[in-house]
């Protein structure tokens, strides 16, 4: 009973807090640009309104067009439940859970790309192609980063991998994972979530034809994914386990806030890169993770 309550509590935490992040990013961007900007809670209002709205379906789309966002959303929330939260641990932890996490991202990617291609639109095909292609490099970087954590701690369980004291490669790993975060969540400089030109978008162009509740699922899923990456990054770098629970929770929250503000600052100060330079940037992220891996292997204790 307690376990079920705990899972529900965690779920509520993830679901409720996630849409805060895009709001904070937008506020930071507005603040740097000297604008007032939308309220931090804007995404909550949008989601509530979308949930009430009707749906316009492309004449070509099949039920997979709606099932896609739903499955992607479930996969991302499931991945979030696997992730431990500092000393509170995770709702479900087993040896090899980190691989399930990575492959749940893949499920979400498969489903969004599938739903995008249901419409037969050239733009959405373009976006899906970009998404799955850049994900190849992002996945290589992510798995290398995870491997470095695993070699560092000698474990394949997220709870153990994220609770050990950090190694010398933490800075490299943080930089690499931050780049992966930007790429996987379609932020500048990889993608511009605010652009209005279909030709230059990745994620946004994929979900162009979605409306109503499915769009709400897509937007909320994206927010959960962003929070997930921010929490993963924070815990990969900060050893929270030694701290008392309350302090650990505050530290984790602060770290996530720092990452979020960092994303906002990057978005304000950088322009989106040309698409041909995206692979270069992702390769750099991969190399950063690779160096962290080498440090964990050769430079770590024993």
């Amino acid at each position, binding site marked *: 009973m307690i376990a079920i309550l705990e899972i529900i509590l965690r779920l509520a935490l993830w679901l409720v807090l996630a849409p805060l992040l895009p709001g904070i990013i937008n506020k930071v961007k507005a603040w740097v640009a000297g604008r007032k900007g939308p309220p931090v809670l804007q995404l909550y209002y949008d989601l509530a309104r979308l949930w009430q709205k009707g749906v316009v379906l492309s004449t070509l789309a099949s039920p997979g067009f709606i099932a896609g966002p739903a499955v992607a959303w479930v996969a991302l929330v499931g991945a979030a439940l696997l992730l431990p939260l500092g000393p509170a641990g995770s709702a479900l932890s087993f*040896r090899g859970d980190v691989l399930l996490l990575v492959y749940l991202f893949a499920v979400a990617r498969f489903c969004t*790309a599938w739903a995008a291609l249901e419409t037969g639109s050239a733009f959405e095909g373009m976006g899906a192609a970009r998404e799955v292609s850049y*994900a190849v490099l992002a996945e290589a970087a992510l798995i290398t980063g995870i491997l470095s954590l695993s070699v560092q701690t000698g474990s394949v369980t997220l709870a153990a991998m994220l609770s050990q004291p950090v190694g010398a490669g933490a800075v490299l790993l943080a930089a690499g994972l931050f780049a992966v975060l930007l790429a996987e969540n379609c932020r500048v400089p990889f993608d511009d979530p605010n652009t209005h030109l279909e030709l230059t978008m990745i994620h946004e162009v994929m979900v162009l034809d979605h409306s109503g509740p499915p769009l709400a699922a897509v937007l909320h899923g994206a927010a959960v994914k962003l929070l997930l990456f921010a929490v993963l990054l924070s815990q990969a770098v900060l050893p929270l386990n030694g701290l008392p629970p309350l302090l650990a929770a505050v530290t984790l929250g602060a770290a996530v806030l720092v990452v979020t503000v960092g994303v906002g600052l990057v978005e304000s100060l950088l322009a989106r890169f040309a698409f041909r330079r995206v692979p270069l940037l992702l390769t750099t992220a991969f190399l950063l993770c690779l160096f962290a891996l080498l440090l964990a292997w050769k430079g770590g204790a024993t």
Partner: protein
Amino acid sequence: MTPGVLLLIAACGVIAGLVLGPWRPRLWLALTSAGAIVALVAALWVLVGATDWEWRSGFAVAGEPLHLRLDGLSAFFLVLLSVVGGAGAVYAREYWADQQHPDSAGRGRLAWNAISLSMGGVLLISNGLHFLIAWELFAISGYFLIVLERQRREVRTAGWLYLAVSHAGTLCLFAFFVALAARTGSWELGPLRAHAELAPLFWLALAGFGVKAGLFPLHIWLPSAHANAPSHVSAIMSGVAIKMGLYGIIRFGGWLPVPPAAGGVVIGIGAVTALLGIAFAFAQNDLKRLLAYCSVENVGIIAIGLGGALLGVRHGDAPWGRLLLAGALLHVWNHGAFKALLFLGAGSVLHATGTRELSRLGGLARVMPWTAGLFALGAAAISALPPLNGFVSEWLLYLGLFDAAASRSHTAWAAMPAVIALATAGALALASFVKASAMIFLGAPRTEAAAHAHECGPWMRGPMLALAGACVGIGLAPCVFWPAVARAVGAWNPAWAGAEMPAPLFTLSAVQFALAGLFIAGGTWLWRRARANGLRRALTWDCGYARPTARMQYTGGSFAGIAGGWFAWILQPERALRRPRGPFPGRASRIERVPETVLERGIEPAGRVVMRASAAVRRLQHGRLQFYILYLAAGVAVLAMLVWLEGRP
């Protein structure tokens, strides 16, 4: 003795089918599928029970007494053979029926049973000479299956290539078995780990079996053969036949001592095969070629696991070696299930539209919902997405590799690149299968043929459903299948016998169940919500285009443009572009082709040089007697010179 009786019954059924098949299709189907089921029972008997089945007879074939053996490992592969063989036979009843293919259907049934029998023989035979005979029969019946549609030129070319390359491999195997027999003094096969001097023979086996398995760069026969064969043949070739090569490598890697470098080399070849195989797959615009190249990738994944197991043995039977072998073996089953499913799905598409060009298909999901759904399931499974079976085997492989890396020994040199290669190949596989399924089933039909497609009938749908069931079953309940895997692992290395199930497999099983339930619940809930809010159909948003046409859709080539470009150094794509010119442009075209790089850029030029040299030498033979006398005189003179020089002090 009971597995032996069952095997005898199965063999009788298949042989009777072989004899009667060309004329009696219904009886053939009954006999063949009954044979497959009985063989499956026999194999499961050995896998579930603890005893191997062995039968020695004084009866001599080609001067050697008959020796059959069904242990955990061969039973494991026999399960694959009987499942895919049975499913393909049922599928062929509608797909390659006598009405449509009056001249080749009978031949197809004959060759089908011949290849099933000879592959069963390869698995059972425990005598080097008989193994070679069965292997050769298997190769030749494979040829006859591939060239069923022999009036088409590319089919004949593919068949030739298969035959030539396959025999190059058999040559290596011939050397391997002869050297083995010469060393041990008998053709008997079995555990010979004590003979340390046999270790170098592993390289011969790797090359010989590697050709059949399709390890890069020995895979050259594979794409064209799989693409041009009828789809049920592609399914058994890809699902089972290439696994026979892997069976050989695994079998003799377990029975014989291996060189110290074997593990590292096999992992390396596996990683390269996986990455390049899927890169080639991603760039293909021919559906069946894409699937064939993806088989190359999966062979690479299995090779990574096998190489890791060899390393594990070398490092004192490290537990991660066991995990890697278990993952590799489970992937053999998994790949057999989802690749056969995908090839049968491709056959259904080909049957309905007459084309396997991705750029001529599209929008089939509406007219072929069954095929679309089953193909999508196979695509998700082969992309290793949870909660399906591909994820379970890759998860085991990852666990083993992560443990090997975390051991911080020298094995990390092999394990860490393998992890990265596996993840990258996995992401590319996802991209390839999003591309394949979307180009076929989603969007608007690109041609008339695609618009007027029809769903396949129950005989084709049934086998696909069964294979899809296997994908879901292994995915949701891997614990049920673990004892069989553990038995095969124990047969490979007795020190690893009785392997405990990795504890998280239970948890994983539960998580997979929960995920499957939640995916369905989530989809239903969102669909209901959308329905309740009101659904309205409208045109796809195409940047304000009032009349979007099907030709505006993204094509397979453009979809693969980005990631395909990263592999241009090996893919070497050829492009022919005709730009529209003038105020009233007549025609414009852009043709893009991905060549078989290894074949067209490596082996064919080398072959041409050899042919040219041969032609030059042939000029010496022209039929003029006086010149022949001159050669003779010159030869005698040179010989005399040599004798004279030798005689001098």
